[in-house]
C-alpha cells in the first residue's frame, strides 16, 4: 500500500498552525516517512495541486473570494478534511468585529487607493464546507496534532479531553484568576488541551481555543458580575476570540443595551 497523500493549506491567517507542524522537530521526519506530502505551499516548491488527497489540513479564515474558491477546490479533492486552528474552526481574531463593514476597516487601515483589495467578512472555514475533524487552538497544540494525525492514519477517531481549561488549571494547582484575582478569565468556557498555559503564567484565559462543548455562558457571566466586574469588561474579554459564537448567544446585544444604559466602561 502506498503512503497516504497529504496536503497542508493556509487560507487568510498567520500560518501559525502550519508552523506548529514544522515545529514538531522531533517527529517531522518520521511523519514524512508515513505520509506523502504532495501539496504544502509554505514548505514545498513543486506542489501538485490536482492529485486527490487522502488527508488535507486547512488553517485560517475565509476573508477573500479567492480563499473561498481555494477552500472549495481543496474539499473537492480530499477524502478527509481537517480544520486546523481557531481561525478555521471558529473564526478567531480576524472575525472578532464582523459587525463592522469591510469597507470601513479597509479605509481605516489603507485610506484611499486600496479598492482593488479582494475582501469579505472573515468567517471560519467550517462555515462553508463540511469537515471531518476540527482541531482548535491558537496555535494548535503539537501533541494534539500528532495524536490526530496518528488516529487518522490508523483509521480511528482521536480522543480529546472534552473539559474546560479550568480542569487543567486545577490539576496544575493554580490560584483561580476569577475567585482570587477578580479577573475575567474564559477558562470555564474554553476547551482544554493547552495545559492551562496562560493561567499558569499568571494571565487569565483569553479563550483562544474556542468554546468547550455546552459552555454555560450565563452562569459564567453571573459569576463575573457577582465579583463586581462590569458587562463592558466581560464583553471586552469575551468578544476577542470565537466572537461569532459568543455573539450568536446575544452577548453583543446585551453589551449594547448596557452601553445605552450608560454602564461603566
Amino acid at each position, binding site marked *: 500500500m502506498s503512503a497516504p497523500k497529504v496536503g497542508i493549506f493556509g487560507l487568510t491567517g498567520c500560518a501559525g498552525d502550519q508552523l506548529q507542524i514544522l515545529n514538531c522537530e522531533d517527529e517531522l521526519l518520521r511523519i514524512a516517512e508515513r505520509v506523502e506530502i504532495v501539496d504544502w505551499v509554505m514548505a514545498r516548491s513543486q506542489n501538485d495541486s490536482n492529485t486527490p488527497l487522502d488527508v488535507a489540513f486547512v488553517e485560517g479564515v475565509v476573508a477573500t473570494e479567492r480563499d473561498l474558491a481555494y477552500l472549495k477546490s481543496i474539499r473537492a479533492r480530499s477524502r478527509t478534511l481537517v480544520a486546523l486552528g481557531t481561525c478555521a474552526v471558529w473564526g478567531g481574531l480576524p472575525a472578532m468585529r464582523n459587525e463592522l463593514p469591510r469597507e470601513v476597516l479597509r479605509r481605516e487601515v489603507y485610506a484611499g487607493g486600496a479598492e482593488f483589495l479582494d475582501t469579505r467578512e472573515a468567517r471560519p472555514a467550517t462555515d462553508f464546507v463540511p469537515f471531518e475533524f476540527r482541531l482548535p487552538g491558537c496555535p494548535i497544540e503539537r501533541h494534539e496534532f500528532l495524536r490526530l494525525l496518528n488516529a487518522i492514519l490508523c483509521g480511528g477517531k482521536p480522543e480529546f479531553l472534552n473539559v474546560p481549561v479550568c480542569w487543567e488549571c486545577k490539576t496544575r494547582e493554580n490560584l483561580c484568576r476569577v475567585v482570587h484575582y477578580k479577573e475575567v478569565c474564559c477558562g470555564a468556557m474554553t476547551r482544554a488541551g493547552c495545559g492551562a498555559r496562560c493561567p499558569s503564567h499568571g494571565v487569565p484565559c483569553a479563550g483562544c481555543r474556542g468554546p468547550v462543548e455546552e459552555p454555560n455562558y450565563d452562569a459564567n457571566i453571573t459569576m463575573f458580575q457577582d465579583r463586581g466586574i462590569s458587562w463592558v*469588561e466581560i464583553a471586552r474579554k469575551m468578544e476577542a476570540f470565537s466572537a461569532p459564537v459568543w455573539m450568536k448567544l446575544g452577548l453583543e446585544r446585551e453589551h449594547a443595551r448596557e452601553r445605552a444604559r450608560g454602564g461603566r466602561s
Partner: protein
Amino acid sequence: MSKRTLSIPHLGRVEGHGGIYVRIEDDEVREVNLEVYEGSRYYEALLRGKHVDDVQGIITRVCAICSASHTVAALMALEDALGITVSTRTHTLRGLLLLGSTIESHALHIFALALPDFFHVPSVLELAASHPREVTFGLKLKQLGNRIQEGSVDVPSTRSTRASEGSAASRTSASCAPSGRNWRRRSNPWPARSS
C-alpha cells in the same frame, strides 16, 4: 525575437501568499508582476477600542514566525504611550525571548525554506533523505530557539520537572508546557491586580 514567460502562481516556501509573472523578450526582462493575494485581517482597525491589557495578545497573532517581535514591539509602544519604564530584568528577558525567536526563525529559514533551493529539491523532507545529519542538526537548532521562547530549555534547574522521556507525544507536550511547578511556587512575577 524570442519570447519567454515565467509564471509561478503560488510562491512556495515562504510565509504568506503570492505569485509572480515575468515576461522576457530577447533575454531582456520586460515585465514583472508580483501578486500578493494575502487576505486582509485589518488588525490595526480591529484594535480600536480595545483595552491596553488585550493589545499584546492580539498583536502577537499578526504573524506566527515573528510573534515574539510583535509582542515586544506592542509592549514597547504601549509603555511609551503610558510613560512606563521596565526593569532591567524584564528588558533582559525580552532580549532572551527575541534571541530565541531569531534562532528559531533563522534555522527555519535556512534549513526548511532556503536550503532546498541550493540542493534542487522541493522541500526539507527530501533534503533529509540525502543529508540526514545536517537536517537533524538544523531541526535541533530550530527546536532550541522554540524552547528558549517557551521557557522550556533543558537546563539543570528545570530538568527534574520535565516529563520522563516517554512517547513522542508526551515529550512534545512536556516541551510545550510552561516551565515546572517549582518555578511558579518560588515567585509569582504577576502579583494580584487591585480591583
